[in-house]
């Protein structure tokens, strides 16, 4: 794994203790924006303020455990990356339904079920890879970025009665976002590493100076004890078959989101990243599912890996897994000091909204980069384009979906869920008619090198193959045919056959004639310059080196060269 130049501390690096500690605090600051979700769910169930504070404390311990589980570098649990969970919007709608129908007991019971579903899905992810290609992972990340941006915009533009939209609100948002961006773009060293934390502190200070905090905020903060042990008392667990579908959809969305986040972490840490490491993704989803199960067991709502924190890590260049332990430590401290947790919970909307927009920018760009790492033909264009439009439709015309039947509401209730489902279904649909093996016949007397390269390019786009693999296959095809026609004098036509699955690209060239030599040793410069044979041996040497595996057979006068490329 080669660390990209813009990354300061890669996953395996050990940053200085101060950097590790403050990075953890910065991450927790951003994570705390999502504490609003368990609070909303608890309020929906008619819980007392004490219960709300208890749930917030418990969920911090769950998040600490989730961050540590996610950072495990080996074994079946954990992706090995700094990819900690947060209370998630994915489980918000089903949890609100459960809270209304059966109170907190039903929320906790269904949360356990959803976590178990995630763990079950993780076990099958490897087999689902063809149905979940990188362009869909990229789309999921872009949609998550858009959802994050939408929440940020809503927080900024509809802040609520506690902090009405006005000059103070706008000025605080400007100071917060401006500080984060300025430090990220124009500063170096410590200031760039902690641009979000410094921006949030600047936002809090600006709010205090401009009189943005209310008396209610002070009373809420004052009512909490300084030190308290989180209580495990809760109303038990219950289960409802009617809520299985909405929680299952949320579990699928959470699984895809974690897969997307872990893919982004892999890509951020490796300048030579080529393909998703399914072990790391599967371990990441298991860790995510376990954290959600734990949340249900101890009495909290569902959690999911935090895309905005992956965006933060990308922005600051601090990706070390040691920061996950710092995140966990900070969360545990907060869980025992309710005043600190409540102070974060009372974050002014202008500060929270600005931080969300900052993180969303990085998430969206990361998603686009993953999407465009593949060749995109008409099929893939429709999968991405139509799914994107479906997601936008929910945000632009929400009223049009309110009349859908009750059973369909879980699918059309969120742009993220509809966008993901649409992409999965369209991908399945468009796989029909995509032949996995294609062939082309070439006459030695009329070689059109551009048409031959066009053949492999078009197939690569139809299969959604990686650009770098297709480039290598394209060279090997053109160079082998050139060398065969010049040196082996084939009788009759050459047959090219290309076959593909998500893991392999095989290109075969067969013809009647002697086999092409594929030497392991490079010919000398003199041999290359002085004879056609030397030039052909150079061709064979390059062909052997460019493919991941080559084989050459000669049977009954017919020679076949197989070039294998890992995908």
């Amino acid at each position: 794994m080669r660390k990209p130049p813009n990354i300061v501390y890669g996953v395996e690096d050990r940053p200085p203790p101060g950097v590790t500690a403050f990075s953890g605090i910065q991450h927790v600051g951003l994570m705390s924006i999502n504490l609003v979700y368990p609070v909303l769910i608890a309020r929906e169930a008619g819980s007392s303020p004490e219960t709300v504070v208890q749930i917030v404390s418990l969920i911090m311990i769950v998040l600490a455990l989730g961050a540590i589980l996610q950072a495990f570098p080996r074994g079946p649990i954990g992706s090995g990356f700094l990819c900690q969970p947060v209370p998630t919007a994915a489980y918000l709608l089903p949890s609100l339904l459960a809270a209304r129908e059966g109170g907190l007991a039903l929320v906790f019971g269904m949360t356990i079920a959803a976590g178990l579903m995630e763990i079950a899905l993780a076990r099958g992810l490897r087999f689902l890879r063809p149905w979940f290609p990188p362009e869909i992972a990229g789309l999921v990340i872009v949609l998550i970025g858009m959802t994050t941006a939408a929440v940020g915009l809503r927080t900024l533009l509809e802040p609520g009665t506690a902090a009405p939209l006005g000059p103070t609100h706008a000025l605080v948002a400007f100071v917060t976002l401006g500080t984060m961006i300025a430090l990220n773009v124009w500063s170096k060293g410590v200031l760039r590493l902690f641009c979000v934390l410094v921006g949030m502190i600047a936002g809090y200070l600006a709010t205090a100076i401009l009189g943005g905090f209310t008396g209610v905020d002070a009373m809420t903060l004052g009512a909490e004890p300084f030190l308290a042990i989180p209580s495990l008392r809760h109303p038990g667990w219950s289960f409802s078959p009617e809520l299985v579908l909405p929680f299952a959809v949320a579990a699928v969305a959470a699984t895809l989101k974690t897969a997307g986040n872990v893919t982004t972490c892999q890509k951020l840490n490796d300048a030579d990243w080529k393909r998703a490491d399914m072990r790391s993704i599967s371990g990441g989803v298991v860790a995510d599912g376990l954290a959600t199960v734990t949340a249900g067991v101890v009495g909290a709502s569902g959690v999911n890996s935090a895309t905005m924190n992956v965006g933060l890590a990308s922005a600051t260049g601090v990706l070390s897994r040691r920061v996950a332990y710092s995140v966990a430590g900070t969360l545990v401290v907060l869980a025992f000091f309710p005043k600190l947790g409540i102070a974060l919970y009372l974050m002014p909307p202008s500060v929270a909204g600005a931080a969300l927009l900052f993180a969303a920018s990085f998430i969206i760009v990361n998603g686009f980069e993953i999407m465009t790492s593949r060749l995109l033909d008409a099929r893939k264009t429709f999968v991405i384009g139509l799914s994107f439009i479906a997601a936008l439709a929910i945000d632009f015309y929400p009223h049009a979906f309110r009349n859908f039947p009750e059973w369909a509401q879980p699918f059309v209730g969120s742009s993220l869920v509809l966008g993901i489902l649409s992409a999965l279904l369209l991908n399945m649909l468009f796989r029909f008619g995509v032949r996995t093996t294609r062939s082309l016949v070439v006459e030695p007397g009329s070689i059109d090198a551009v048409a031959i390269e066009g053949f492999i390019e078009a197939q690569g786009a139809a299969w959604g193959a990686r650009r770098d693999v297709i480039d290598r296959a394209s060279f090997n095809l053109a160079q082998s045919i050139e060398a065969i026609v010049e040196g082996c004098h084939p009788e009759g036509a050459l047959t090219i056959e290309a076959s593909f699955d998500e893991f392999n690209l095989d290109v075969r060239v067969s013809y009647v004639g002697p086999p092409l030599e594929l030497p392991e040793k490079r010919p000398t410069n003199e041999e290359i310059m002085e004879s056609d044979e030397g030039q052909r041996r150079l061709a064979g040497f390059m062909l052997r080196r460019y493919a991941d595996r080559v084989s050459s057979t000669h049977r009954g006068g017919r020679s076949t060269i197989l070039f294998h490329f890992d995908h």
Partner: protein
Amino acid sequence: MDLREEQVGGVTVVQIKGRLDSTTSPTLGERLSAMLGAAKARIVVDFSQLEYISSAGFRVLLQAAKRADQNAAKLVLCGVSGKVRQLFELGGFLDLFAISASRDEAITSAG
């Protein structure tokens, strides 16, 4: 393949566009050979618009480099990037030629 020549001071810049394979490389070989026949010739070959180079193309470049050595001429390559650079590396050619990062640098180096 298209060849375009340009004089910059005392340096001849040859821009190659398209594919350099067994069909097109003899044309480049003949042109370079003629230019390098003159004593102390200064040649820059710009690959920035080259899409493909096969073993036949590399053979022509090796022959040109040898001729340049024999005639105390200078041959500098530039625009060797992306896929083409990968092929130079694959065939073990990166260290065999004088390769400059940019066209201007190559002209300075050749001059």
